[in-house]
């Protein structure tokens, strides 16, 4: 029952936050002189033909996959009390290097894809490890170092793209790396979509969705079912108690950042392996920062993050149709921003409610009839000994 109430609260807080955020957004839309109801209609309108509808859904999911991975990367660190703000830099650097390696070799299909994934995870992990090492050895706050490393990563990525890793011809308007050969492409899932009896969408559903699901399951199991996850969460809840229980705090910082960075390395791969097949100046940016919002909204649990990522994907899809109706696409960003703010507030309220319930629980434990006789147990012990 308490479990039910606790999960109820966990779901209720973000839901309430979303409703509040939508109300505020409606106000904003009204203030700029547009009809909020039109905006709602556009967001919910997935098109007329079955093909258009599946296409809209595929767009939402395709957008949600990298957001989910980004949220997951942030949340792993966050569960230990570490703010990995550097996910942005980690995935950008990981993606360009993975793209370069992928383009440079030719291997049989699965191996080629595995190599690219491996490179991306390794680069992300190593870049995050810089943050961890600085923290463990020099006591540098991971917030500061990871933000600073973002700039370095973005700068390095630009340099690599325009310099040694440039694959696009001189003078092209969009600079990219060389294309990854077809053996390094991740097959789409449209077969599954049509297999489910849905109409064939225009673009492919990212096959990387499967990798994301696996990553989510692995992280969930790791966090809640393993000793390592226990140590990680214990450190997040109380570093001093975790240390006293035998957790090696420094080792945990490094391991956690490695995991967080490795997941961050995956963020760019759905696009890289599924659609673009190269990294370029037009490659999706900002996913790392959105990941922080998604993780917050999803309360750092894989299922929550998946739902949050889908919501963000759903909102992002509406950006273009909204413009057709004369409503600026920034409305979507405003909604996302207010949702995150509202969630932070709601989470705090939920925390206080939990605490108050716990206090009541303590009053119950203290005053309940089961307390029976405070001294009796002692007497019994005494009696048993005599």
């Amino acid at each position, binding site marked *: 029952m*308490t*479990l039910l109430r606790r999960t109820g609260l966990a779901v209720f807080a973000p839901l309430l936050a979303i409703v509040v955020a939508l109300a505020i957004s409606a106000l904003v839309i009204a203030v700029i002189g547009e009809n909020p109801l039109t905006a709602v209609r556009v967001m919910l309108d997935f098109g007329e033909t079955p093909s258009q509808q599946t296409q809209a859904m595929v767009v939402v999911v395709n957008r949600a996959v990298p957001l989910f991975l980004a949220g997951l990367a942030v949340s792993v660190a966050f569960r230990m009390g570490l703010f990995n703000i550097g996910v942005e830099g980690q995935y950008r650097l990981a993606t360009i290097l993975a793209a370069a390696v992928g383009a440079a070799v030719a291997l049989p299909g699965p191996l080629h894809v595995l190599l690219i994934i491996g490179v991306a995870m390794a680069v992300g992990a190593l870049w995050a490890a810089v943050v961890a090492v600085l923290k463990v050895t020099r006591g540098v706050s991971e917030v500061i170092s990871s933000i600073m490393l973002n700039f370095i990563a973005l700068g390095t990525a630009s340099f690599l793209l325009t310099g040694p890793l440039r694959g696009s011809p001189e003078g092209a308007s969009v600079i990219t790396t060389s294309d990854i050969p077809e053996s390094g492409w991740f097959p789409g899932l449209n077969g599954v979509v049509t297999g489910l009896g849905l109409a064939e969408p225009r673009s492919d559903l990212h096959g990387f969705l499967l990798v994301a699901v696996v990553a989510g399951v692995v992280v969930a199991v790791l966090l*809640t*079912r*393993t*000793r*390592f*996850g*226990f*140590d990680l*969460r*214990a450190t997040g*809840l*109380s570093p*001093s*108690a*975790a*240390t*006293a*229980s*035998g*957790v*090696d705090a420094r080792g945990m910082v490094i391991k956690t950042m490695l995991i967080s960075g490795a997941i961050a390395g995956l963020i760019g791969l759905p696009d890289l392996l599924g659609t673009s097949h190269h990294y370029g100046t037009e490659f999706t940016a900002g996913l790392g920062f959105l990941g922080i919002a998604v993780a917050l909204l999803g309360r750092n649990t894989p299922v929550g993050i998946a739902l949050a990522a889908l919501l963000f994907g759903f909102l992002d899809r509406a950006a273009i149709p909204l413009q057709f109706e004369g409503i600026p696409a920034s409305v979507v960003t405003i909604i996302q921003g207010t949702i995150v703010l509202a969630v932070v507030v709601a989470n705090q309220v939920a925390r206080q409610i*939990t*605490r108050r319930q*716990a*206090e*009541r*629980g*303590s*009053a*119950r*434990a*203290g*005053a*309940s*009839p*089961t*307390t*029976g*006789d*405070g*001294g*009796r*147990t*002692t*007497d019994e*012990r*005494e009696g048993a000994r005599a």
Partner: protein
Amino acid sequence: MDGGGPERYTPPGPAVFRVYRLDVARSRRGTAPGPDDLRSGGPSDTVRHHRPGPRRETPLNEPAPLAVELRGITKRFPGVVANSGIELRVRRGEVHAIVGENGAGKSTLMKTLYGMHRPDEGEILLDGAPASFRSPADAIAAGIGMVHQHFMLADNFTVLENVVLGSEPTKGIRLDRATARTRIRDISDRYALGLDPDQLVEDLGVGDRQRVEIAKVLYRGATTLILDEPTAVLVPQEVDELFGNLAELKREGLTVIFISHKLDEVRKVADAITVIRRGTTVGTADPRTTTARQLAEMMVGAELPTPQTRASTVRDTPVLELQGVTVAAPDARTVVDDVSLTVREGEVVGIAGVEGNGQAELVDAVMGLRSLTAGTVRLGADDITAWSTRRRREGGLGFIPEDRHRQGMLLEAPLWENRILGHQTRPPAVKGSFIDRRGARADTQRIMREYDVRAPGPDTLAMALSGGNQQKLIVGREMTARPRLLIAAHPTRGVDVGAQSVIWELLKDARAEGMGIVLVSADLDELIGLSDTLHVMLRGRLVATLDPARLTPEELGGHMTGGNTVGAA
């Protein structure tokens, strides 16, 4: 589960009250307070500290209006009656102690009086007039102030800034420091608080911080002060100072409500005592005619064991050997200086000392939480100096930390996860590198049953438990792992009498079974009663090794302060 227990305790009839009240009246009229009340009471009454403040000023015969009167206060929470039919009568100008076990309902009652929630039944009378508080602000306006157990001070502010925070005197929009300073100096002088308004709070010791809290309340014009477990955070000397301050407050006609479960202290400072058990008042007592044991028995409703151990169970095999252990603080100051000691199987080695003399650092060093600058630590035959904390725990070290919230528990995690904490590598809670949730829950339930942890179930959050129940869970968890050596740092601090006796029994049992125990404590009775060997720690060094069988608390107190003189205070 809730329905199965014995029936609720029935509120005491007027007879109980009358008995105790008569007792009070008789003794008050009969005895003049003087040296002979030092002699009253049982064996635990050997008073080490001087008695602060004269008691004779309390007007006893004239029917002075009661400063605070609570009539039939009942407070229900969903499914729980936290307080029922509470009766409390506090005279103006007295120190009135409220004692009771943790979870007996003292805090709920004080929250009612301080306006943090409203009672479901009953009335509050201040100076004879009914009062009703919607918030603490109302209570403050009515002259009631609360000094919380955990200080609420901003470290990087001065005393002045902390005192005025929230009710700042202003000149235009600027803080009128001159006025504030005058008023604080005034309060400080009047009640002998000895505060310097311009000192930074972070530079103050615990005792001074508490006086800042008291000044905060006085600054807001309180005439009735509620002190919630004020001595829990103080060392004996500071307790004496606090009692001196309370005497000053009393002299100025203020009323003090003093919540505690340290019965010796209560008997030393209070003019009257109200005992609360299971949510209701079980009676009042006169501190001068009631012994600590009698009070404790009123609190728990049963006779109590003493910490006295019986026959020695010390064997020959050493389990822990410290050789020249030296620890430096981050600022390179030596906090543990060349400590050598041996703990044998079945032996309790007590470490006495005024807090802050290196005991905490020594414990950290043995647990591997702090590195040594010199010396070795041996556990049985192994040199564990270089081992990690986890390896030490696996090797048979158990740990009851001094501050359970900081080092012993995950407050926001359920009990079964707290069962795993510190035992992440061992069954039954863990299978290989996976957590055995079912095993952990089952074992938590066993611990709750065997160690009398009162909580709804293993999924309850740890923060929902009272201090005593949290501590019993920790003790149960550590005992379950059957350590070779247990480090018990203040194992009964902040727990009620019932839990205290349970924990003492557990330590005695473990000792009888051959466990070596290092007992760090500030409770002199506990140290003398449980230890086989007693070391005194002063400024990081072991300065004396004493035989607890031939030691009085006075002598021990003398060694702890370095004076070696009886009654140094």
